C-alpha cells in the first residue's frame, strides 16, 4: 500500500508535464443523426471564421492563443472559445498553411491559363509559384520564425510535413509534372528543399520587395536543373537503389499518416 501513493503521485506529476503520454484526449465520434452533421458543419464554419479573423492579429500578438482570443472577440465570441483550438498557435499556423495552399492552387490555375497562350518552361512556372507562396508569408514575416519554431516541435511535425508535401505536390502537378517514375518522388523533395531554404532566406531579407530572396530562389532552381541534367545524362542509378529509395519514401509517408486528402 505504501508504494501506491508514491506511484500515483509520480504518474500525476508526469501527466502534468507530458500530457501526450498520460492524458488521453478522445473526441466522441458517433454522429449518425443528421442534425448532428449540421452542427458539425456549423462548428467547423465558426472555427473557420474565428481563424480567418485571428490571422489579422498575428503580426501584433504572434502565432498564439492570444491572437485567437482577439480574433474571436472581434467577431463577437467570448475569448474563452479559444479552447476550440487546443494546440493554440499550431492550429492557427496549420490553418494559414492549408488556406494559403488552396489560394496558391487558384493562382496556379490562372498561371496555367496564361501559359496556354505563351508557354513557359516548367522551372519558370515553379519559380513563379514559389514566389507567390513566399509573398503570402510576407505580411507575417516578423512572426514567421516563431511559426517555424512551433511547427518544428515533435507533435506538430506530421502536420507541417503534410502541408509542405501538399504544397510541392500541387506545384509539380500544375507545372506539368505527371511523371509516374522515380522523378515523381525526387522532384517534390527537391522543390520542398528549395522552398524551405528560400523561406529561411526570406526571414532575414530586408531588401526592397524581397528582391534578394527571389534572386536566391532563382539561383537554387538553376542549380537543381543542373543536377537533374547530370543525373539524367549519367544514367548511373541502377534499378535496385531506385526501388529501395522508393520503398523508403512510401514507408516514411505511411508512418507520417499522409494520405493525399488535403
Amino acid at each position, binding site marked *: *500500500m505504501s508504494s*501506491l*501513493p508514491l506511484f*500515483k*503521485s509520480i*504518474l*500525476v*506529476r508526469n*501527466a*502534468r508535464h507530458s500530457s501526450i503520454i*498520460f*492524458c*488521453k*484526449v*478522445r*473526441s*466522441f465520434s*458517433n454522429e449518425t443523426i443528421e442534425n*448532428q452533421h449540421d*452542427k*458539425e458543419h*456549423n*462548428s467547423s464554419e*465558426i472555427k473557420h471564421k474565428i481563424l480567418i479573423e485571428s490571422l489579422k492579429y498575428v503580426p501584433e500578438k504572434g502565432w498564439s*492563443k492570444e491572437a485567437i*482570443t482577439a480574433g*474571436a*472577440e472581434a467577431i*463577437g*465570441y*467570448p*475569448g*474563452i*472559445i*479559444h*479552447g*476550440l483550438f*487546443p494546440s493554440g498557435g499550431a492550429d492557427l499556423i496549420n490553418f494559414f498553411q492549408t488556406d494559403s495552399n488552396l489560394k496558391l492552387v487558384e493562382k496556379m490555375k490562372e498561371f496555367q491559363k496564361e501559359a496556354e497562350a505563351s508557354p513557359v518552361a516548367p522551372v519558370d512556372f515553379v519559380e513563379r509559384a514559389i514566389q507567390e507562396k513566399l509573398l503570402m508569408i510576407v505580411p507575417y514575416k516578423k512572426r514567421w520564425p516563431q511559426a517555424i519554431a512551433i511547427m518544428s516541435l515533435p507533435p506538430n511535425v506530421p502536420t507541417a510535413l503534410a502541408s509542405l508535401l501538399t504544397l510541392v505536390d500541387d506545384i509539380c502537378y500544375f507545372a506539368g509534372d505527371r511523371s509516374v517514375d522515380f522523378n515523381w518522388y525526387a522532384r517534390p523533395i527537391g522543390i520542398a528543399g528549395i522552398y524551405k531554404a528560400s523561406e529561411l532566406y526570406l526571414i532575414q531579407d530586408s531588401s526592397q520587395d524581397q528582391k534578394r530572396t527571389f534572386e536566391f530562389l532563382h539561383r537554387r532552381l538553376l542549380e537543381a536543373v543542373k543536377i537533374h541534367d547530370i543525373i539524367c545524362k549519367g544514367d548511373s542509378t541502377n534499378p535496385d537503389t531506385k526501388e529501395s529509395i522508393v520503398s523508403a519514401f512510401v514507408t516514411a509517408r505511411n508512418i507520417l499518416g499522409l494520405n493525399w486528402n488535403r
Partner: protein
Amino acid sequence: MICQKFILRSFESSNFFKYAIIKRCKTQILTENEPNEKQTHFGFQTINESEKSQKVHKVFQDVARNYDKMNDAMSFGIHRIWKDIFMMRLAPTKNTKLLDVAGGTGDIAFRFLNYMKHSNCEECHVVVSDINENMLKVGKQRSEDLKYNPKLISWQQADAESLPFKDNSFNAYTIAFGLRNVTHIEKALEEAYRVLQPGGRFMCLEFSQLNNSTLQWFYDQYSFQVIPTLGHIIAGQWHAYQYLVESIRKFPNQEKLLELVQQTGFQDITYENLSMGIVAIHSGFKL
C-alpha cells in the same frame, strides 16, 4: 451505530459488502410500498429520487468543515494538481464570466482568480454556487482569509438543476466533483447549456473509470478499505465517505458522460483522462 462499530472491528471486504447488501435490501423493501416514485442511486443504495438531494445535502453538511483536509488526505494532495490542470485547460481570458457550480469551498474559483492575476482582470468575474450553505460558508471564510478582491467573486446558494441565473449570462461553466451528486445529470447539463452564452465553454472535472483492470482492483481496494476509515478518523464520518466511493462507481464512465454532454447540445466535445482515468475532464462548447 452498532453496525458501524461492527464494521470498524472487521475490515474484511466480505463483511463490508454484506453490510452494503443488507442495507440495500432494506431500502428496497421499504420502497416497494410506493412504486409510483422514480428511483435513483445513492452510492450502492437505491432510493427515491426525492430523497437523494436531502441525503447528499446531509453528507456535505456534515463534511463541510473537514472537506479540504479530507481531500488532501484521500488523494495525497493530487486533487490540487487535477484542479490546476483543469484551470490550465480552461485557460480563462480577461473578460471571462465564470459560473462555478458545486464549488462551495472555492477551490476552482481561487484558482481562476490566481490565473487571472497576471492579466488585466477588470472585466472577469466568478460566481460560486453550491446547493449547500455550509460549504459556501467555508468558501467565504477562506476567501476573506486569503484576501481575494470581493468585487471579483460572489457566492450564491443554488441547485445545479435549476439555476437562478438568466439565459446566456456566463461564458464559462465549471463543475468540479459535483455532477456526481446531482440527482438528474441531464437537467444539470441543460441548465449549464441555458446559462452559457454562444461560444461559452462547459467543463466538468469528475471521477471516472480506470482503463486498466489491475489498477482498478488496487484502486477499489484503496477506495473501499482505506477511504471510509480515513473519513472516520479525520472527519468522524464513515458513511459520508462510503457514499463518496460508491457514488464514483455509479457515475457514468467517460464515454457515457460524453454522450450525455453531446445530447444536451454541446459541440466540439472532448474528454481527457488524468491519472489514467481516476478523474476525467469533459469539455464542450455552446456554439
